C-alpha cells in the first residue's frame, strides 16, 4: 500500500486495467457472433439488421451494443461515394467547346476540370518519357496523326542509355564526389544490362513530374502556413492524418476522380508528397534565427525580398531535406501506383508477384531499391552541399561538369549510331536494351527459391504452423474477444491518465469513429497484427540499438543501414518474405517486423546519443560502471526519444500490415485492396484509410503527449 501511495499513477493504471478486465468478463460473447469474412455490405443476409440515414440504407449484423457498437457511420462511405459520383457526373453542367467535334458539349464542371487536369498531366509525363525513351505522342499533341504519317521522321528519338547513365554519374560527382558517382554509374549499368531500362525510365519520368510539382505546391503552402497562423491551423489536421494514412488508401478515390493510369497516379502522389514538404518548409523557416530576419528587414527588404533573398536561402538545407522526402515519397508512390495502372518498375514488380515469379520480382525489387538509394543519396548530398566561391576559377573549371556532360552526350549519340551498324537486324544494345532482352537471373533465383522450399520446407512449415497456431491465432482471438465498450474505456482511460481531459476527448473521438464504422472487427485484426509486429520490432530494435551504441563505429554503421533500408519502398519488403514463407500471415508479419525494426533501432541509437556529454562525464566521475551508466543515466534520459521511436514503429507497422493485404490478410487492408478493384470503392477506400490513420493517430496522440510531459519533467524539451 505504501508503494501505491507513493506512486498514485500506478494505482490509477491498475484501477483502469481492473475496470477493463471486469468489463471484458462481464460482457458475454453473443452466440450469433462470428468474424465476418465476406463483404457483408453486399450480400443480403436475412439475419442482418438495417437502418436508414441520410437516405442511405445500411445493413449490418446487430449485436449487443456493449459487445459491438452498431455501424452508425455505415452510411458515410456510401454517401462519400454518391457525392463523388454526383460531383463528377451531375454537378454544374456547363457548355464546353470540343475541339474534335467542333461544337459545344455539355459536361459537368468537375468532370471537365478533372479531364483537363489529367490531360495536362498526361502531356507532361509523355513529354518527359519520350525525351528519355522516344516516341510520337508529344509531336502528335501539337500536330496530328496525319502529320506523322506524312512525315515519318517526326519522332522524338529518346536518349541512349549511355547518355542518361553518364548524366547521372556526372551529377552524382558534382553533388557528392567519387563514391556516389561510381555507385550511380554501376546502378545505371545494372539497370540497363538487366533489361530494366524502359520501366526504370518510366518510373523516373513519373518522379520527374510528380516531385517538382509537389515541391512547388509544398513550398507555397509551407510559406503561407509560416506567414499565417490561420492557414497553419487549417492545414495541421490534414497534415496529421496524411502522415498516418497508408499511401495505399489514397489511391482509391483517385480512381473515381481521375481514372486509371499515370496521370491519376501523379496527382495522387502529389497529395501524398506535399505534406512532408509543407512540414519541412515550416520547420526550416521556423528555425531561422530572428536576428537574421531582423537584419533582412533593417536592410530594407520588402516582404517579397525578405522571403526569397533572406528566408528561403537561409532555410535552404531544411527545404532541400524536404525535397529529399518528396522524392522518396514520389518514388514509393510510383511503385504502389502500379495498382491504379501506373507504368514502370512497380507494374513489373506487381506482375511478377502476381505470377509468383519470385526471381523476376527480385530483379525488379533490386532495381527499385538501387534507384531508391541513388535518389536518396543524391538529394541528401544536394541538401548538405555548401556553395563554394567560384569567381576565381577558370571558365573550364567552372563549367567542367557541363562540358563533360556535353561530351558524354555527343559520345553517347555516336555510340548509338555506331550501334546501328554493329547490331544489324537485332536490338541496338548501345541505344536501349529492351525489357526482356537483357541478362536475367530470374531462373537462378527461382531455382534458389525452389531449393530453399525443397530443403527447408519442413522446418519453415513447422515454424509457420507453430507460430500461427500457438501465437497468432490465440492473440487474434483475444483481440476479437474484447467488447467494444471495454476497448473504448481502456483507450479513453489511458488518454485521460496520460494527457488529461483534452487527450481523452481526442482519443475518444478517434476510437468512436472506428467503432461506429462497419469495420471494427477488421480494425482489431489490423491492430493485433501491428501490435505483434511492434512488440517484436521494439525488442529487436531496442536491443540492437543499445548494443550498437556501445561502439561509435557500430552505431554509425547501424544508422547507415537504417538509412538504406528506410529508402526502400515498403512494397519491396514483401518479395524476400514471400520467397521464404510463401503466402501466409507469417510472411506479412515478418515483413512488418523487418520494416518496423528500422525506426525502433534508429531512435534507440539517436536517443542514447542525445544524452549530453556533460552528464556522461559527471556519471563517470561518480564512478559508475558501464552497465550502471546505461541503466541509471542513459536509459531514463533517452527513454522519451525511444518512445518517439515506438510511435514511428507503430506507423511503419501499420503501413506494412495494410500493404500485406496484397499477400492476403483479413484486415482493413484486404478491404482497401478490394475497394481498389471496385467501381463503387472510393468511399469505402477513403473511410478505411481514415480508419487506419486514426488507429495510428490514437497511439500517436498518447505517445506524443506522454513524451512531451516526460521531456518537460526531465528538462530536455
Amino acid at each position, binding site marked *: 500500500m505504501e508503494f501505491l501511495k507513493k506512486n498514485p499513477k500506478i494505482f490509477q493504471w491498475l484501477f483502469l486495467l481492473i475496470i477493463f478486465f471486469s468489463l471484458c468478463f462481464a460482457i458475454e460473447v453473443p452466440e450469433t457472433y462470428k468474424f465476418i469474412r465476406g463483404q457483408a455490405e453486399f450480400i443480403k443476409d436475412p439475419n442482418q439488421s438495417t437502418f436508414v440515414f441520410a437516405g442511405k440504407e445500411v445493413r449490418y449484423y446487430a449485436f449487443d451494443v456493449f459487445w459491438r457498437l452498431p455501424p452508425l457511420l455505415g452510411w458515410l462511405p456510401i454517401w462519400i461515394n454518391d457525392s463523388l459520383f454526383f460531383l463528377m457526373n451531375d454537378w454544374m453542367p456547363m457548355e464546353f467547346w470540343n475541339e474534335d467535334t467542333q461544337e459545344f458539349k455539355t459536361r459537368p464542371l468537375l468532370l471537365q476540370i478533372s479531364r483537363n487536369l489529367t490531360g495536362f498531366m498526361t502531356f507532361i509525363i509523355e513529354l518527359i518519357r519520350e525525351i528519355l525513351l522516344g516516341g510520337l505522342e508529344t509531336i502528335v499533341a501539337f500536330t496530328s496523326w496525319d502529320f506523322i504519317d506524312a512525315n515519318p521522321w517526326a519522332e522524338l528519338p529518346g536518349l541512349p542509355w549511355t547518355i542518361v547513365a553518364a548524366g547521372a554519374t556526372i551529377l552524382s560527382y558534382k553533388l557528392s564526389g567519387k563514391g556516389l558517382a561510381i555507385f550511380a554509374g554501376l546502378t545505371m549499368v545494372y539497370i540497363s544490362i538487366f533489361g530494366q531500362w524502359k520501366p526504370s525510365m518510366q518510373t523516373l519520368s513519373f518522379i520527374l513530374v510528380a516531385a517538382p510539382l509537389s515541391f512547388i505546391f509544398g513550398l507555397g503552402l509551407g510559406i503561407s502556413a509560416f506567414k499565417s497562423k490561420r492557414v497553419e491551423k487549417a492545414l495541421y489536421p490534414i497534415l496529421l492524418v496524411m502522415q498516418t494514412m497508408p499511401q495505399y488508401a489514397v489511391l482509391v478515390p483517385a480512381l473515381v476522380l481521375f481514372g486509371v493510369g499515370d496521370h491519376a497516379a501523379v496527382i495522387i502522389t502529389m497529395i501524398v508528397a506535399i505534406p512532408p514538404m509543407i512540414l519541412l518548409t515550416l520547420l526550416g523557416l521556423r528555425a531561422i534565427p530572428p*536576428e537574421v530576419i531582423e*537584419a533582412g528587414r533593417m536592410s*530594407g527588404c520588402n516582404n517579397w525580398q525578405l522571403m526569397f533573398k533572406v528566408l528561403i536561402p537561409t532555410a535552404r538545407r531544411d527545404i532541400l531535406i524536404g525535397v529529399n522526402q518528396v522524392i522518396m515519397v514520389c518514388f514509393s508512390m510510383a511503385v504502389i501506383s502500379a495498382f491504379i495502372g501506373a507504368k514502370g518498375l512497380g507494374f513489373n514488380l506487381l506482375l511478377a508477384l502476381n505470377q509468383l515469379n519470385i526471381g523476376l520480382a527480385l530483379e525488379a525489387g533490386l532495381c527499385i531499391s538501387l534507384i531508391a538509394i541513388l535518389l536518396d543519396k543524391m538529394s541528401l548530398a544536394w541538401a548538405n552541399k555548401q556553395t563554394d566561391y567560384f569567381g576565381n576559377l577558370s571558365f573550364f573549371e567552372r563549367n567542367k561538369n557541363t562540358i563533360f556532360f556535353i561530351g558524354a552526350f555527343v559520345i553517347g549519340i555516336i555510340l548509338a549510331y555506331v550501334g546501328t551498324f554493329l547490331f544489324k537486324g537485332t536490338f541496338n544494345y548501345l541505344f536501349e536494351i529492351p525489357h526482356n532482352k537483357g541478362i536475367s537471373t530470374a531462373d537462378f533465383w527461382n531455382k534458389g527459391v525452389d531449393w530453399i522450399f525443397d530443403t527447408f520446407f519442413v522446418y519453415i512449415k513447422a515454424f509457420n504452423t507453430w507460430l500461427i497456431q500457438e501465437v497468432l491465432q490465440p492473440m487474434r482471438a483475444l483481440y476479437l474477444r474484447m467488447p467494444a465498450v471495454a476497448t473504448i474505456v481502456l483507450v479513453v482511460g489511458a488518454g485521460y491518465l496520460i494527457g488529461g481531459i483534452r487527450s481523452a476527448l481526442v482519443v475518444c473521438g478517434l476510437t468512436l469513429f472506428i467503432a461506429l464504422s462497419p469495420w471494427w472487427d477488421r480494425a482489431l485484426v489490423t491492430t493485433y497484427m501491428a501490435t505483434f509486429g511492434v512488440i517484436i520490432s521494439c525488442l529487436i530494435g531496442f536491443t540492437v540499438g543499445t548494443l550498437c551504441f556501445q561502439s561509435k563505429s557500430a552505431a554509425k554503421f547501424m544508422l547507415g543501414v537504417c538509412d538504406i533500408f528506410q529508402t526502400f519502398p515498403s512494397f519491396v519488403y514483401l518479395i524476400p518474405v514471400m520467397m521464404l514463407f510463401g503466402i501466409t500471415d507469417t510472411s506479412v508479419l515478418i515483413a512488418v517486423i523487418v520494416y518496423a525494426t528500422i525506426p525502433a533501432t534508429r531512435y534507440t541509437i539517436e536517443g542514447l546519443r542525445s544524452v549530453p556529454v556533460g552528464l556522461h562525464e559527471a556519471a563517470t566521475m561518480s564512478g559508475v560502471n558501464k552497465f550502471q551508466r546505461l541503466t541509471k543515466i542513459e536509459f531514463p534520459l533517452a527513454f522519451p526519444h525511444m518512445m518517439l521511436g515506438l510511435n514511428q514503429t507503430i506507423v511503419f507497422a501499420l503501413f506494412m500490415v495494410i500493404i500485406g493485404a496484397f499477400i492476403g490478410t483479413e484486415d482493413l487492408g484486404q478491404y482497401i485492396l478490394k475497394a481498389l478493384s471496385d467501381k463503387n470503392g472510393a468511399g469505402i477506400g477513403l473511410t478505411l484509410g481514415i480508419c487506419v490513420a486514426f488507429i495510428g493517430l490514437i497511439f500517436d496522440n498518447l505517445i506524443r503527449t506522454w513524451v512531451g510531459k516526460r521531456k518537460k519533467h526531465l528538462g530536455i524539451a
Partner: protein
Amino acid sequence: MSDAVIKCESVYKIFGENAEKMLQDANGNVDAKTFQENGCIVGVNNASFEVAKGEMLVVMGLSGSGKSTLLRCISRLTDATGGKIFIEGQDLLELNNKELIDLRRNKMGMVFQSFALLPHKTVVENIAFPLQIKGINTDDSISKAMDMVKLVGLDGRENYFPRELSGGQQQRVGIARSLAVEPDIWFLDEPFSALDPLIRKEMQDEFLRLQDKLQKTIMFITHDFDEALKLADRIAIMKDGIIEQLDTPAKIVLNPATEYVRKFTEEVPREKVLLIEDVMDQSTSDNLGDLRVSKDEIIENVAEKILTQEKTVGVIDSNNKIIGSINPTKIINTVFGGRKNGN
C-alpha cells in the same frame, strides 16, 4: 531641441493580448506586476529621451531589462504599444510600409549580437546585400561593398563565406553591412557581447576609430557597464523596462540616481571615467603651482603629474584660462575614497 535625430516621448512596449487596452486603462501609470497578473509583460515602460546628431547613446541593462525591445521599437522592428517616436522630426509610427522601407534603406543601419549574416553569401555579397535590395546594380554595389571591406579591415577575405570566419571577423562584416548604405542612424544591439574579451576590446577600439571618422548618430545596446563607460557620450541605464538614469558617464558615476545604478558604479575605476572637470574645485586660489592641466583630461592620464606636485594645480579650459584648481589630496580621495568596500 531641433537637432534631435531620435526623439522618444513616453514610449511603451507591452507584450500580450489586450496590451493596448490595458495601457489605456492604466492612464500612464504602468505597474509591471499588475500587468503580469493579467498576462501581459512590460518590455519598455515610459521611455522618453532624445539623441542629438552625432551623439552616441549607450543603453545599458541586464538581460530582460527591455533594452533590446526599446531598440526594436525605435527601429520599428516591433511596433511600440504607446507613445511617440520621431526620427529626424518624422513620426515613425505614422509611416506606412513603403516609407518605412525607404527609411531603413537610406537612413538606418543595424548590427546584431549574433551577427545575423546570410549564410549563402560571401563577405562582399553580404555587405552589398542592402545596396542590392535598394536596387543598385551588382557592379556598383560590389565596388561600394569592397570599400566597406577595406574600412573594416577585411581585405583579402572578401570572398570567404561567413562560416569560414571567426566571430570577430563576422561582426566586422555585420558592421560593414550596416554601414554600406551610409546611414545617418546606427543601431548596435550588443554587437560585441558574443566575442571573447580580448577581441571585444579590439573591436571596441576599432568601433571608436570608425565613429571618430564617421560621426553617426548611434544607439548602442550593451549589458556591460564598462563597455558603456568606455564608449558612451551618454548612458541610459534600464531596469524592468524603465530608464533608471540617463546621463553622462561621469555624472552617473558621481551621482547614481538610484540604489540599482549605484551598485554598478561601485566597482568602477573612477580615474578611468572621470575628467578633471568633474572633480576640480571651482575656486581658484592664488597659491597655484606651475603645472596646468586641461579640464577635459581623464584623471588617470594626469594623476601621476598632479600627485608629484606639492602645490595645488590649476585647471585650464581650451582657451588656457584658469577656471579651477585641483590638489593631490582631491585626486587621492577620488580614486581611493568614498567606496563602500574600498581600500
